[in-house]
């Protein structure tokens, strides 16, 4: 019967389904973009008609598409297409040399935007001497360089001028402007909300056009597809992002399931309407694959800039003194109000909590909401569940809160070096208690936080979850809290079915099961038999989204 035939059949695969009831299969059939059979050759033979496309996997490993629980698409695409890139391990001299090269090529007056410098460079950059060097190589072009946390910027004097900043400018609320301790002259360091002053200047200059936004979004999604990602949550979706996703979906060009988290407050790195005003528009941006179903709340900053909120104080600092612990930027009652309101609207809340005190507060707020409202199917996330007080570990599972594991920092990195400076080594190393969370029954969901990670390659993250060592070979011999390592099968769940549950798409994606979207990836190796320290070398050969090829490795 022609109507029983599948559109597409895969045979002879080593198909890892991520469905615990049937972990392995050799054949899958697809019809109308959905999986209609999972099993062995005989199970799909009856569905193979004359018009059915048959793909012989020749023993290759296939698994469901990756689900990235935390990415910033527009920024990732912009960074790839339009910005100066250097690794966070780049030295001061390298960074300066790269700016010099870019300035030589850039038209006069045009912005040079780049990233990302390592947080450990912050004290060195936050000095008049460093600013003088930057000014010298930038040849009159305004320069803005983002750090590896994306929360802070280092800019040159030209950029300060365009932003209307001088030594007499006050610090903005929830941010600070770097100053020379002796003279008060600006160093070009823009911490947290101060970064927004320069970003806004760039946005208002017309530097980013609508064409660039569209191109950036399309490029971002293509990049995700190339790493096997077929579903993601955009963790700070402003109106242009929502519009771009909806526009792409309407034109049939959205090649991943997208869930968007609309910021409750305008973030320091993106500009435009936020909060109630933005949330009110969500239905106009909803599409088949575009789901504005989350709200993003930033509860604190980042440890490297001493803006994350901790129970214990930071190391001594000439400005902040001996006992600074950082602080949260939303009060518990405000957070309760937000979570309560979002639940009424059916929206999950993704709460940025970089310090352990922020995590405690977020859990406290959700505890209050659960106590009054009872259970819910709405998922709330704590991003980035990394520094967690021991007593809080069990509360994730008790309260049904998702541990958003992003970015891939569960191995030694320049971030960690920055944290050691601000927190002391012993505390800095109590980073990412993944195994403890797992043992306590928490839902762990994997994400890249791209472009905080320079690329969203989940295989880097998966290797790191298993080895706790830096897959790039940087920091050789060092492991971060290796007792917190987990096995590869669990790591694969974290980046597929767990993230699918976390973003509310467990019925659609995250495993190879009948009825789910045919989002399938073919790998160059069986990752369950690959030595752990080779996992990051895994290449995606083909990415299928709803039964269509959206990426094929050249």
């Amino acid at each position, binding site marked *: 019967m022609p109507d029983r035939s599948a559109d597409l059949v895969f045979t002879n695969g080593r198909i890892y389904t991520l469905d615990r009831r049937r972990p392995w299969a050799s054949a899958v059939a697809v019809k109308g973009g959905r999986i209609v059979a999972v099993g062995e050759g005989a199970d799909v033979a009856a569905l193979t008609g004359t018009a059915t496309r048959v793909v012989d996997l020749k023993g290759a490993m296939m698994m469901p598409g990756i689900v990235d629980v935390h990415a910033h698409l527009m920024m990732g695409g912009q960074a790839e297409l339009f910005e100066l890139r250097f690794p966070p391990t780049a030295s001061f001299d390298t960074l300066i040399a790269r700016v010099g090269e870019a300035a030589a090529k850039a038209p006069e007056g045009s912005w040079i935007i780049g990233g990302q410098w390592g947080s450990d460079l912050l004290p060195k950059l936050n000095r008049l001497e460093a600013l003088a060097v930057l000014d010298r190589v930038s040849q009159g072009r305004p320069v803005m360089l983002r750090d590896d946390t994306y929360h802070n910027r280092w800019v040159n004097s030209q950029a300060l001028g365009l932003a209307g900043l001088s030594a007499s400018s006050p610090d903005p609320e929830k941010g600070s402007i770097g100053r020379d301790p002796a003279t008060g002259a600006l160093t070009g360091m823009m911490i947290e909300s101060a970064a927004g002053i320069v970003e806004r200047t760039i946005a208002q200059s017309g530097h980013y056009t609508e064409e660039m936004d569209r191109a950036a979004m399309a490029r971002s999604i293509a990049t995700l597809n190339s790493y096997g990602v077929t579903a993601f949550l955009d963790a700070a979706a402003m109106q242009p992002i929502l519009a771009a996703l909806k526009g792409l979906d309407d034109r049939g060009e959205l090649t991943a399931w997208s869930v968007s988290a609309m910021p409750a407050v305008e973030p320091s790195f993106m500009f435009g309407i936020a909060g109630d005003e933005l949330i009110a528009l969500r239905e106009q941006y909803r599409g088949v694959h575009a789901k504005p179903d989350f709200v993003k709340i930033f509860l604190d900053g980042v440890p490297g800039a001493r803006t994350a909120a901790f129970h214990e104080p930071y190391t001594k600092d000439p400005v902040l003194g001996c006992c600074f612990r950082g602080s949260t930027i939303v009060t518990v009652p405000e957070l309760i109000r937000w979570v309560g309101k979002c639940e009424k609207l059916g929206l999950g809340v993704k709460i940025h909590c970089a310090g352990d005190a922020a995590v405690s507060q977020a859990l406290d707020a959700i505890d209050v909401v659960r106590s009054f409202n*009872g259970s819910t199917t709405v998922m709330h996330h704590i991003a980035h569940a990394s520094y967690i007080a021991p007593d809080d570990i069990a509360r994730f599972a008790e309260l049904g809160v998702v541990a958003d594991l992003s970015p891939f920092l569960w191995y030694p990195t320049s971030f960690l070096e920055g944290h050691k400076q601000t927190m002391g080594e012993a505390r800095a190393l109590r980073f990412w208690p993944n195994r403890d969370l797992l043992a306590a029954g928490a839902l762990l969901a994997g994400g890249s936080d791209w472009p905080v990670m320079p690329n969203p390659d989940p295989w880097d993250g998966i290797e790191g979850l298993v080895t706790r060592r830096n897959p790039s070979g940087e920091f050789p011999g060092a492991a971060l809290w290796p007792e917190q390592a987990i096995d590869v099968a669990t790591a694969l769940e974290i980046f597929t079915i767990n993230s699918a549950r976390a973003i509310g798409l467990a019925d659609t994606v995250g495993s190879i099961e009948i009825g789910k979207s045919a989002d399938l990836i073919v790998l160059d190796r069986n990752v369950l038999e690959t030595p752990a320290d080779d996992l990051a070398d895994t290449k995606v050969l083909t990415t299928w989204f709803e039964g269509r090829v959206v990426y094929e490795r050249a």
Partner: protein
Amino acid sequence: MSAPDPSSDAKIPVTVLTGFLGSGKTTVLNCLLRQPSLAGAAVIVNEFGAVGLDHLLIEASEEQFTLLDNGCICCTVRGDLVATLKELDAKSRAGETPPLSQVIIETTGLADPAPILHTLMAEAELMTRFRIGSVVTTVDAVNGAATLHRHPEAAKQVAVADRLLITKTDLVSNEALGDMLQQLEHLAPAVEQTIARNGEVDLDLLASLPADAADVTRIAGRLEAVAHHDHGCEPDCHHGHDHHQGTHHGIRTFSFVIDKPLEWGAFARWLDYVAALKGEDLLRFKGLVRTTDDPGRPLVLHGVQHVFHPPARLDRWPSADRRTRLVFIVRDIERETIARTLVKFAAIDAASLASPVLAAA
């Protein structure tokens, strides 16, 4: 008894007269305005629609009368209400109008009285000159039962009332009236019910005013009445049970008696939480609270949805009963939710938290 608070005594009481379409609000108002005690009263009529019609029926002199004709008070009028009240006050103080003794706001039939109360509770400048009198809700004995059944707005008007005024009683049998009163008792237990006969109303609007000592006594009495009421109806009580949920749109009343004094900080935090998460469904909340820091002087609490009146401290307890008493008029909130969260967040010992029934036993 404690002396009346002079500052609150000087404030002008505002009575909110509400009731569903056709329930006789205007007739009642006409009648009330003929009473000598209403001299110096200003009436604010909130019209639904662009043209005021109801006001033509009111036999009142011009200076007694201010009309808002810009539509539904529940969503649009708050700002105008503030401006109108300020203007009334200013004119009266400037001698352009007679001294203002009280204000009556007649709402539209569909209006939710809560935003009007919020305006009076939350607007700092108004709070220095005006205070909430009572919420008087008219219910039509002929159509009232059906209206309450059909319209959640009508049920809410009854639930938040301080007094119910039953109209058109001469048009129904005593038996039907009895059923009606019983239904109202379920929806608004221990609320004073006044019967209007042949359009004549014997109602002194100034008789019960929340801010003075007499009223606190009344609240306390009411809380005790609620306690007895609950007691009397165990174990097969109809109040708030599923049986009545359909009829009354999930509106129910329950109360707590707490033996031990409360830590005010923790209790205030709990109030914050309940306002943030359940405010919309917390139709009315009243409490007489014994705090650890000043157990001899109770706090009077009053909340309408998410807005709470600043707590007022009394000089002494109005009666020998010095236990904390809390009354909740809610929509779709379980008693158990309130009890559990009071224990968890307001530092209240579960053993000291009792329903009036248990306390009385």
